[in-house]
């Protein structure tokens, strides 16, 4: 087999996959299924993340997940851990006034309530970890680059905004270091002010320079749209927005007339789509080396969708597996197991990522290295 060429997958593919896993996680409280989903996400991240700064964020999400589970269990213990019968231990109950109905502080802690907290926390943690996996696999900025042309300005503004934070922390660090060279006289307010003034001045100057630089390179060149065309675009966008709002409200509120639900939502989506297209046409801008959908992308996205679909089927048909009772040891059906394992496929089917530290030439060298090794054998 020839060596797989390293390339970055379309960011949207990773997001579809991760959202698929997240949907699957939200459809169950089975701890075995949830832990497997976390393991699947972790495995794929370990196999297919690059060495970019954002790739290192997965650990943070894992820690956040652990934190969420702990908090959830702790809350169950502190606020009425008494549902169920199997008492683990009894804490002294804090008497509360009568008007606080249904809330109990401390008291007996049962296995059921702790387990309920654990399952619940695990589900939320898995959701967060799935999103974290998407974040560390796909460059968030590249995702923004893939927005439709009509939203280009918004996308650029977001990209610039994301680069402001590291810059701010950078100049804060610099100014603080500089102030250690000078000493700190005066009260707390003065100390704060001597940090804030130079940092803000710095940020302001920087953004002026960036704006000038972007302007000098053609950002925001005027299009060739007539007044009428612009009005049509605006009208379409407004209709779309209204349609989507009314439609989704009617979908969720069962008492609303049915003709408001489906048809209105469809109308809204169509109008919004038309609006985006019309707005996109005025933009005389092209994209350099856009990310393309190839079989790899399809496979990755599909694996996430399949996992979500299988979990949906399990949740609707096999209730005992999806929402196990708290008094028994949870089990997993073969179908659910296979469904979750499909989610791990990207670890194999996705191409290896390009490494940022290696520039163009060394990438070629590394990708051919195994062949060289074979030759030397």
């Amino acid at each position, binding site marked *: 087999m020839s060596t797989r060429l390293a390339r970055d997958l379309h960011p949207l593919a990773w997001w579809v996959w991760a959202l698929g896993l997240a949907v699957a996680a939200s459809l169950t409280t089975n701890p075995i299924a949830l832990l497997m989903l976390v393991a699947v996400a972790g495995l794929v991240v370990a196999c297919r993340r690059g060495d*970019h*700064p954002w790739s290192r964020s997965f650990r943070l999400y894992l820690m956040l997940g652990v934190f969420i589970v702990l908090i959830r269990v702790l809350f169950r213990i502190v606020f009425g851990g008494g549902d169920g019968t199997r008492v683990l231990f009894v804490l002294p109950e804090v008497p509360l006034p009568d008007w606080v109905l249904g809330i109990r502080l401390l008291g007996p802690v049962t296995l059921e309530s702790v387990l309920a907290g654990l399952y619940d926390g695990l589900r939320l943690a898995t959701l967060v970890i799935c999103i974290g996996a998407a974040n560390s696999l796909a*460059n968030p*900025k590249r995702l923004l680059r893939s927005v439709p042309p009509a939203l280009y300005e918004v996308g*650029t503004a977001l*990209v*610039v905004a994301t680069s402001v934070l590291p810059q701010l922390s950078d100049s804060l660090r*610099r*100014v603080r*270091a*500089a*102030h*250690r*060279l*000078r*000493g*700190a*006289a*005066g009260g707390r307010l003065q100390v704060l*002010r*001597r940090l804030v*003034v*130079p940092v803000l*001045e710095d940020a302001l100057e*920087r953004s*002026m*320079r*960036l*704006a*000038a*630089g*972007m*302007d*000098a*390179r*053609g*950002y*925001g*060149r*005027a299009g060739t749209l007539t007044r009428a065309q612009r009005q049509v675009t605006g009208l379409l966008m407004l209709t779309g927005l209204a349609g989507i709002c009314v439609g989704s409200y009617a979908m969720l509120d069962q008492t609303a007339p049915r003709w408001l639900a489906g048809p209105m939502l469809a109308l809204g989506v169509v109008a919004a789509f038309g609006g985006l297209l019309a707005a996109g046409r005025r933009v*005389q*801008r*092209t*994209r*350099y*080396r*856009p990310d393309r959908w190839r079989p790899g992308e399809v496979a990755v996205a599909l694996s996430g969708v399949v996992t979500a679909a299988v979990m949906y089927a399990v949740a609707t048909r096999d209730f005992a597996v999806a929402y196990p009772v708290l008094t028994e040891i949870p089990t997993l059906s073969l179908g659910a197991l296979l469904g979750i394992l499909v989610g791990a496929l990207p670890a194999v089917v996705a191409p290896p990522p*390009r490494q*940022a530290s*290696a*520039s*163009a*030439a060394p*990438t070629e060298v590394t990708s051919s290295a195994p062949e060289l090794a074979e030759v030397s054998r």
Partner: protein
Amino acid sequence: MIELRGVSFGYGEGGRDVVSDVDLTVEEGELLLVAGRTGSGKSTLLGLFNGLVPAFTGGRLRGDVLVDGVSVLGVPPRELTRVVGYVGQDPAAGFVTDTVEEELAYGMEQLGLEPATMRRRVEETLDLLGIADLRGRDLRTLSGGEQQRVAVGSVLAMHPRMLVLDEPTSALDPTAAEEVLATLTRLVHDVGLSVVLAEHRLERAVPFADRMCVLDGKGGLQTGDPTELLRASPVAPPIIELGRLAGWEPLPLSVREARRVVGGLRERLGEPVLPVEASGPEALRGHGITVAYGQAAVVDHVDVRLERGTVTALMGRNGSGKSSLLWALQGSGHRRAGRVEVDGSDPGSLSPAGRRALVGLVPQTAADLLYLETVEQECDAADREAEAAEGTCRRLLDELVPGVPAQAHPRDLSEGQRLALALAIVLTAGPVVVALDEPTRGLDYPAKAALARKLIEQARAGRAVLVATHDVEFVAVVADRVMVLAEGEVVSEGPTRRVMAESPAFAPQVSKVLGPDWLTVAQVAGSR
């Protein structure tokens, strides 16, 4: 091709004109060098070409700007990208994307070029600027010279007819500066591009210039042949000073030209009067200093010895660990290993106040130290912070630069005045060692000469002065000893004359012309 016709420009109502009634035409395929003292309006003049002035600065503009005879007054910069490519003073501040390749493509995306065209032009630009091996790199990980070349490439890919650069080499080490200028010259020769370039360090840029334009600081402008203009220019590189002194006619612009006419001068000068090597009691001793970020050592087991009464220069490439070493010596910076000893104690183990009394440091961005509204407030605060007698800081400031208005806002001061204020604040604590990080950035020749005099005075008054800098000519004037860092290690150290003679990249112009015993024009003037 592009013409400023009768242009006057001033900031604010009733203020004086920064440029007044200026006529300037840039021809096809020439390299025009803009020179002048700090604050004489070089950046303003450059911004006029593509409308950044007054679009981003405000102010009053009279006169007309023409491209091929058609007025483009009031046209915003974004619509002029096909005519003028502009690279600002700090290229990193203008980057919009993450990687080199995307940055090169950004401008073309705005122009709406075909993807195939974009792809081709990106490859061409990568080759033209010699940055093909950087294509996938994160922009923030590039060195200063690489960033500058990417910035040039990013506007060049849009195929403008003219390139405007504001101090492209001011932050670069001598080798990187040479590379950037050579690249620009190649563009002028091969592509027929017009280049307009503002620069403080004329010794770097003058040899490449076809024409020169000198701002007199009162709004006026002289344009002409560099040889003619430099005769009376208020700013001139050492080689021109030498030529003026020796009465060479015509003035040589490059070291090569000067070598051809030097013959007689060397005989007339005879043996050089070597300056007495300054030395004094030890002020600072550092042993095995190591600074690391993560696993990478940026300063690797460096030994330092500074003497009272001497000025030591710290040189080396961008990113060779100069700043990290300064911060480590001061004690505020993190030190992985090693000892520093000043007056029997280690500044790293003292309180911030204790450190300041031993080692003072003026950071790279001197303005970081300043945060109050007036010079007077800054000085008072400095006195209080250092628990010095009232008026100490002001007296020091007056010694450095007399006549800084007490009510002026620190940001309104000139570069030189602001640096002097920062230095005065640092000196108020009475440190034994004074360290300065890249102090010459943005200073013109007279300001640099003044700074050199003041630093030498400080040293002779019993302090040890340590200056990290790229500026070879400044080192030749100010330093007694030189330390060269590379990859965090000391690669050469010793008296200025010896170190500079050893490495051609660090040789000042005068010694390139007259030989290693001669370093400065003042030295030549002294032996006549």
